[in-house]
């Protein structure tokens, strides 16, 4: 058999595609990241804030965009689509067609002058049509690649852009290009399409100016959006006082054929309401909903905050129609409250539009020969949620089912694991490792600083007098050379900087241009190629801080630019070369927990050729899955469990440790040493990473006579009865949220609604005449699970809503169970006499979590589940490097979700295990042991567990774990004795910068 190809094609450059690409590229594979649009980022770039952390979407996404854009092993192919895919797993030949962009990606510097001069305007799709953009454009200011594109449909071909482009990047004769790729795996992450609210004519979208879609509202909320972050109505630019949010527009709607739930809309509507209220506290927000589906991690807490802290009003009603008041263009929202029809007037209505499969889903499926489900989303199975119907092609993100960002990110990493394991023999076959010249020793040399000041086309040069800055800089001490460049970042300037470093024997370099966040890596690369240590480079941001913010004050901007450059030169004089330490990696994983998640993670590691230790405290593998006998789908869980256990136990690379627990963990990323306790027998294991998959436990209820009356059972016990033939009830009542969403456990346990629906359907299948009641607070059958909820209802299962004020009441009377239920439709307490009462009990965090968290030094959430590094974009990482998380240990979740996360944890782990040694940050904290008093303050303030105390001459002394230190400097500024200095940002360096900044009085003071 021929060798596999160590490259992966990722189709779709949204957050899922980006994450998958980064994970693959960081574990030794070449990645082609394809997108139809001119830049990556997908829908997330349009969002204002994200729930439940209210992080700014762009702020957390931008670093990933930059990373993907600059990664040596990721090639971005923009404006392209797939024409054909031949071959099979491990060897695909893919034919692509790339539409012309008309701009040379190599030459365009993104300065934006072309767009300022373009005379043609059209609708700005990025701002959802709320503004205009020119025919030559970038989708958004931070776009990656930051390369303009010509919208050929709008362009009249006047040629102005070519004339104003100083970089010579415009090429009108560019033709459609055919590209042939050879890849081993393919990942599909084409995302979703927003539901077109015009199809719901009764809501008047498109006819009424003040009815907007939720994504339009995101742009309205955004500070970089069309209204500059003030919430306004499109009809007249007035600030609305009352906003209505209408849920399930294009979701859960049989009439238009989208029966499924779009999963994310409840939360984004709540977020939009909260953020709108933060903009304007007097605003009244009302959300019209059917069920509030706040089923994710800490979502219910967010929902409660919206209601209690922010005063967002929630009305349970499907809105049948919206009308417009002619004069004011206000909207009349019709709804039903307490069974009475009502109408309320609002200034603005936001339609929470659902997710549709991507526009070209059918075409894509045909080209790739993969199956779609009945809604045209990608088809996958419960136990293989990341696999399409064609081997070697994987799926993640909203294309497999509507989902939010963290789940898309987890799936993306998971798909990366899958894509990698099928070609793991070809790891590092196609990646490039750059060779650098040896570093020049500059010690003992007087600083010779070279300063390069950038015009950025006219971006800086149009405001700041750049030549004047250069002349000034030349007068500064230790500046051996200074010049200005049209674009300091252009390819030819890099060559020039290289030559000048040599020619003038420079030993430090300063670039005065834009932001180090995007450009520092490029210039560091350049100085490194010229033989200088990368820490001998510094940047002054005279674009953002001068030309942009003082656009109309040329003189003052120029003076400020001089001040900024002078102060950064002062710091640069004191720069010292630093080493980036390399730490060895033990290519072995430790997985804690032998349930479905743990086994999957171990298997994925093994498939990628890494050894794995799988530690299970019970005497057998399988965890909760052992109690699941049937699913909503057709797969047999016990049969699958059996084959997974077999696969795990037969895999040579996996070492299973049953009846074992962790008794001690030492070390850090790449080099852990863990002691296992197997019935008193200690065993030491060396490993490079840890995956926490410790699962969760079921709540043991003390409500509703559980344990008192044997007719009261949990859903799991009901499932056992339904499987083993012990079921013969005529009336079954199920009560949801037993132990969840209450004072003790305020969160939603996520899986119980679908578990109840599953058992209700089973009852109806076995005994159709049995009456089944489900008493619920909100039915949270998100995504395609909604189909089963609908099916249960159609089979006669009665769903009755209750709230905290009207909980069902249960008594035992004359040997019978008597349940009184508040019937909200007829508004009376209704008696039911169930033969069987099934409680949908909460999923509780594993009580071992606290102990394990302490050993691993990782945090728990306030609900005592493990707390990941970032809820949105790092769902399976811990802040401490080398430790990962998956499954129920993270939060209650389904089988599919557990498998996706377990694969994700394996992929994240592989980014470390695949390296022989890790290069770590050089600009880290440094302890002078002579000054250290051993007070441990540094240890307590470090968020990364990068400081530990070591005995030196019998006294505790702070010791920095180089592998873990991120260089934030918090320890240094907290140290009472001044023993810690932060390399590259030492006190001396910062103070030199401050002094120089203030040395000369500026003219404009």
């Amino acid at each position: 058999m021929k060798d596999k190809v160590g490259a992966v094609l990722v189709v779709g450059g949204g957050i899922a595609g980006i994450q998958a690409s980064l994970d693959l590229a960081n574990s030794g594979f070449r990645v082609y990241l394809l997108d139809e649009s001119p830049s990556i980022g997908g829908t997330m770039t349009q969002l204002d804030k994200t729930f439940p952390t209210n992080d700014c979407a762009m702020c957390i996404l931008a670093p990933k965009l930059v990373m993907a854009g600059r990664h040596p092993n990721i090639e971005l192919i923009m404006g392209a689509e797939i024409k054909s895919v031949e071959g099979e797993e491990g060897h695909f030949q893919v034919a692509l067609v790339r539409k012309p962009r008309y701009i040379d990606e190599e030459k365009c510097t993104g300065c934006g002058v072309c767009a300022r001069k373009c005379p043609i305007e059209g609708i700005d799709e990025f701002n959802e049509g709320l503004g205009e953009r020119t025919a030559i454009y970038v989708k958004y200011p931070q776009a990656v690649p930051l390369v303009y594109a010509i919208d050929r449909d709008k362009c009249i071909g006047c040629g102005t852009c070519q004339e104003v482009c100083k970089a010579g990047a415009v090429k009108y004769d560019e033709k459609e290009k055919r590209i042939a790729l050879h890849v081993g795996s393919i990942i599909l992450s084409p995302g979703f399409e927003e539901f077109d609210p015009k199809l719901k004519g009764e809501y008047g979208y498109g006819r009424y100016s003040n009815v907007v879609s939720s994504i339009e509202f995101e742009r309205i909320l955004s500070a970089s959006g069309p209204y500059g972050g003030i919430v306004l109505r499109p009809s007249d630019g007035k600030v609305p006082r009352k906003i209505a949010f209408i849920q399930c527009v294009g979701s859960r709607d049989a009439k238009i054929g989208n029966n499924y739930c779009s999963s994310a809309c409840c939360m984004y509507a709540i977020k939009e309401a909260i953020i709108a209220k933060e903009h304007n506290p007097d605003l009244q927000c009302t959300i019209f909903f059917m069920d509030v589906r706040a089923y994710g991690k800490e979502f219910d807490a967010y929902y409660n905050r919206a209601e209690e802290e922010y005063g967002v009003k929630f009305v349970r009603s499907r809105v049948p129609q919206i009308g417009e008041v002619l004069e004011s263009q206000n909207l009349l929202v019709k709804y039903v409250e307490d069974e009475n029809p009502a109408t309320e007037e609002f200034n603005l209505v936001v339609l929470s539009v659902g997710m549709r499969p991507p526009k070209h889903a059918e075409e894509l499926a045909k080209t790739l020969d993969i199956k779609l489900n009945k809604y045209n989303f990608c088809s996958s199975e419960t136990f293989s949620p990341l696999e399409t119907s064609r081997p070697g092609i994987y799926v993640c993100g909203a294309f497999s089912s509507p989902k939010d960002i963290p789940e898309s990110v987890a799936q993306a990493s998971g798909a990366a694991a899958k894509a990698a394991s099928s070609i793991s023999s070809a790891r590092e076959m196609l990646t490039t490792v750059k060779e650098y010249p040896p570093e020049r020793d500059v010690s003992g040399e007087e600083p010779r600083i070279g300063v390069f000041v950038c015009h950025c086309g006219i971006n800086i040069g149009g405001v700041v007098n750049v030549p004047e800055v250069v002349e000034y800089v030349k007068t500064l001490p230790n500046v051996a050379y200074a010049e200005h460049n049209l674009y300091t970042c252009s390819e030819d300037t890099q060559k020039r900087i290289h030559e000048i470093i040599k020619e003038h024997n420079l030993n430090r370099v300063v670039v005065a241009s834009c932001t180090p966040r995007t450009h520092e890596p490029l210039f560091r690369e350049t100085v490194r190629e010229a033989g200088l240590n990368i820490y001998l480079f510094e940047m002054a941001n005279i674009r953002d801080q001068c030309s942009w913010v003082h656009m109309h004050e040329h003189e003052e901007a120029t003076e400020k630019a001089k001040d900024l450059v002078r102060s950064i030169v002062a710091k640069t004089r004191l720069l010292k070369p630093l080493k980036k330490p390399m730490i060895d990696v033990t290519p072995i994983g430790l997985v804690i927990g032998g349930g479905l998640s743990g086994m999957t993670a171990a298997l994925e590691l093994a498939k990628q050729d890494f050894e794995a230790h799988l530690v299970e405290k019970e005497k057998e593998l399988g965890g909760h899955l052992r109690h699941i006998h049937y699913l909503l789908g057709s797969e047999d869980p016990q049969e699958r469990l059996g084959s997974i256990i077999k696969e795990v136990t037969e895999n040579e690379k996996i070492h299973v440790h049953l009846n074992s627990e962790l008794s001690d963990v030492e070390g850090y990323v790449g080099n852990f040493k863990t002691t296992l306790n197997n019935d008193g027998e200690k065993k030491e294991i060396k490993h490079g990473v840890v995956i926490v998959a410790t699962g969760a436990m079921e709540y043991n209820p003390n409500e509703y006579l559980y344990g008192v009356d044997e007719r009261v059972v949990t859903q799991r016990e009901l499932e056992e009865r339904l499987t083993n033939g012990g079921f013969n009830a005529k009336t079954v009542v199920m009560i949801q949220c037993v132990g969840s969403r209450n004072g003790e456990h305020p969160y939603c346990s996520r899986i119980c609604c679908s578990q109840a629906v599953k058992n209700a359907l089973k009852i109806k299948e076995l005994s159709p005449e049995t009456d089944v009641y489900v008493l619920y607070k909100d039915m949270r059958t998100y995504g395609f699970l909604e189909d089963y909820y609908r099916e249960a209802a159609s089979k006669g299962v009665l769903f009755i809503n209750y709230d905290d004020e009207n909980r069902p009441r249960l008594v035992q009377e004359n040997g019978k169970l008597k349940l009184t239920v508040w019937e909200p439709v007829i508004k009376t307490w209704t008696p039911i006499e169930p033969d069987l009462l099934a409680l949908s009990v909460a999923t509780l965090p594993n009580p071992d979590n606290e102990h394990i968290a302490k050993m691993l030094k990782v945090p728990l959430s306030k609900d005592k589940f493990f707390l990941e590094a970032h809820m949105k974009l790092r769902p399976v990482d811990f802040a401490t490097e080398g430790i990962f998380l998956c499954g129920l240990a993270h939060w209650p979740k389904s089988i599919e979700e557990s498998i996706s996360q377990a694969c994700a944890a394996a992929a994240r782990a592989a980014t470390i295990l695949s390296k022989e040694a890790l290069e770590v940050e050089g600009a880290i904290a440094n302890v002078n042991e002579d000054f250290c008093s051993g007070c441990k303050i540094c240890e307590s303030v470090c968020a990364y567990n990068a400081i530990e105390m070591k005995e030196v001459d019998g006294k505790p002394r702070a010791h920095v774990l180089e592998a873990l230190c991120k260089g934030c400097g918090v320890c240094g500024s907290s140290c009472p004795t001044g023993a810690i200095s932060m390399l590259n940002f030492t006190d001396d360096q910062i103070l030199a910068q401050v002094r120089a900044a203030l040395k000369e009085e500026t003219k404009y003071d």
Partner: protein
Amino acid sequence: MMFRPKIVGFLCNWSLPQEVNTTGTGIIQGYPKIRIVRVMCIGRIDPVIVLETFVKGADGVLVIGCHPPDCHYIEGNLQAERKIKMLKKLISRTGLEPERLRLDWAYASETELFATIIDDFRTQVAVLGPSPLAGKKPDENVLAGIMAAKAVTGDSRLRTLVGREKELIEEGNVYNEKVEQEEFDEVMNESIDEEYVRSRIRLLVKDRPMSVEGLARHLGLDPKKVLRHIVVLRHRGLVALDKIEREDPLYIALEVT
């Protein structure tokens, strides 16, 4: 007596009748209220200058160049024609009658034709009456419109379009396609509309902040459209939010150097 309009004539060096130049006895002298400004080619006539001429009180502006296809400068007259066409469209939005501006063709030798043109134009303008901008109390609305138009013609968007029109239609664009006149006119009309309104908005909010509603009332426009223009003007850094009064954000023009 019939109203005798003040007319400014922009004539090219090569179509200017000899009589005017030398003897002063020609037919043109027959109408004393015309003032001739000589340029080498009417291609030089910058729209800003024509508008400024109206601001200063001219009742009519007459531009006369050589008959196409002749032009001493190859095709300056045709370039002028496109500018005047754009100008007339723009002027028609300001409240000033576009008939107060005329472009015509004559050779230096065609003194009779000159007479006819001038006479005809003078009659046409006389019928319109005095310019709303003439006299001591110019009509404020029209003046505001013309000032806005003047600012627009000084800006790059329309100048770029007019400057490229001939090439795009006659020779083809950068993709080697000829642009249809109709298609171009559509783009041009839209651009004129947009830039004119934006310019008016900018001038209106120069000294005092105004709301979208206030602007819409003032301009007789749909507030929805005004808001879209505010979005663009803010994006261009020409207008900023000043403050929010009750439910109305007020916008103010930014100083641009």
